[in-house]
Each structure stands twice: as structure tokens, then as C-alpha cells.
């Protein structure tokens, strides 16, 4: 009888572990997919006919209303989705020359599953219009993400100083 009880406990424990790992990785996938969508959006050319304003609004949907961006190195903090939208609109002619790629994305979900800490490297690849040569700049970031309805949004961006 005792052996059966122990076996049941063991099976339940393993099942719970498997479910937890599956659930965590699935939610992590959701965050990763959302970041992929963000880079796709940034990299999309203007051939879809969307004007800078509409594109900036679409980009804004990836951020929470109260988003807080700390870029460090003496740069002023950027606060609020509206500020991001305004900047995206103004900077679009310049950002169109860049491609954004996220590498080494690691996601740690909070136990409630509604917030996540993300650590990643953002690559900014710039192609020269004249020579066609590509140059690369990379920066490390910590993101705080929040689940809003069904979507993940970026609530906090903090630049990490790899070399201090």
C-alpha cells in the first residue's frame, strides 16, 4: 500500500514538473515571438504604403502606456508610449537604413505568468547607401515585459553596460 502511495506521489510530482517546464517554455515562446514581431515591424520597408504616422502607432503597440526606457551613457530617459511614437515618427527616415535583430534572448517568467524579465543583445545593422557595406553595432538590454490582454508589451528597457 505504501509503495503504491509513493509511486502515485512520484508520478504526480514528475507530471507537475513536466507541466511546469512545458508551461514556462510555452510562455517564453510567446515573449520571444512578440520580440520577433517587433524586429519584423522595425525592419519592414515602406513598400506596404503605410505612412510614418501609422507605422509609429503600430510600433507603439509593442510598449505599455507607461513604458520607461533608460539608455544610460548620459542619455535622457524616455518615458511613455506617446513619446516613443513621436520619436519613431520623427526618426523613421533614419531608422529605415537600419535592420534590427535580437540575439541571445533569455526569458524569465514571473510565477504569476503575467510579467517577464528578458535579457538580450540587440544588433543594429546599417547598410551604407553608397557602398552597400554593412556595419554592425550591438548593445545589451534588460527588458521588463508585461502581459496586457493576450499580448506581451515592453514596460521597461534598461541598457546594460557590458564594458564599464
Amino acid at each position, binding site marked *: 500500500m505504501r509503495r503504491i502511495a509513493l509511486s502515485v506521489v512520484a508520478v504526480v510530482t514528475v507530471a507537475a514538473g513536466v507541466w511546469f517546464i512545458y508551461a514556462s517554455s510555452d510562455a517564453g515562446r510567446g515573449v520571444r515571438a512578440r520580440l520577433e514581431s517587433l524586429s519584423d515591424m522595425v525592419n519592414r520597408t515602406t513598400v506596404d504604403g503605410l505612412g510614418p504616422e501609422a507605422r509609429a502607432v503600430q510600433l507603439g503597440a509593442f510598449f505599455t502606456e507607461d513604458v520607461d526606457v533608460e539608455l544610460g551613457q548620459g542619455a535622457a530617459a524616455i518615458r511613455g508610449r506617446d513619446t516613443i511614437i513621436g520619436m519613431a515618427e520623427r526618426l523613421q527616415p533614419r531608422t529605415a537604413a537600419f535592420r534590427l535583430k535580437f*540575439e541571445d534572448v533569455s526569458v524569465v517568467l514571473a510565477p504569476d505568468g503575467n510579467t517577464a524579465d528578458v535579457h538580450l543583445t540587440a*544588433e543594429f545593422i546599417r547598410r551604407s547607401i553608397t557602398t552597400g557595406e554593412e*556595419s*554592425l553595432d550591438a*548593445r545589451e*538590454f534588460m527588458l521588463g515585459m508585461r502581459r496586457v490582454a493576450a499580448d506581451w508589451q515592453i514596460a521597461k528597457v534598461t541598457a*546594460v553596460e*557590458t*564594458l*564599464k
Partner: protein
Amino acid sequence: MVLATISFIVFRWVLIPIRTEGSSMLPTYTPDKLHFVNRLAYGTRGPQRGDVVAIQMAGPHVLYVKRIVGLPGERVAIAGGQVQINGTGLSEPYVRHRKPWDVPEVTLGPREYFVIGDNRGMSVGEHDFGRAQVDRILGKVVF
């Protein structure tokens, strides 16, 4: 099959292939060339001054390639483009071009190395350099 397995293990965990980008390590490393990072280089002894190392950012896929000039506990400064270690100028034969950079002295922590690229002909604002924690050093750049 055996060769493929050995190659997979070696190039995934021991000798990591990397492609250099940018000009901060000129003239020692030119852009768009293949090199390898030896992850086992520091198994028995820590990084040494003069070593060119790979430093990871959020993970192992995007790396800085820099040269170690300062070791843990040392005081490092740059005066007129010359690296000073504990107040004494460091001989750096690998540096060909030098602009008069001035960087205030810092004292490295017990697990910190001061790393910098060989190309000092760039303006100081365009060059990423500074203190790196030992945990970020992925290995020594070889070949």
C-alpha cells in the same frame, strides 16, 4: 560519423568560430574574417595581459573582441593616448595609430579586467572599452 561528432563537439564547445566586425581591433584583426575562440584557454590560469579575448554580451552569439591591458586590482588610466598601469606607461607594440585619448584612472575590482581594442586611431567616443567582469570572458581568441 565519429569525425562529424568530434567536429560538432569541438566547434560548439571548445573552439568557437567567430566572424569579426568593425574596426576597433585594427590592424591586428581586420573585419569580416574568421577566427576561433578557445573556451578552454583559461582552465588552469586566468587571462593574461596582452591576450585578445572574446567578451559576451547577453550570450555567446554576439561578442566583443578586445585586448586585456589591465588585470584585477590594478589602476588603469589613459593619458595622451598612452595606457598607464599603476602610473607606468604600458608598452603596446600592436598599436599603430594613436589619438590623444584621456581616460581618468579606475581601480579594477578583484574580478575585473580592463579591455580595449588595438585601434586607438578612432575617436574615443566611437570605441567601446572598459572594465569587464571575468565571467563575461568567453575565451581567448586564437588563429
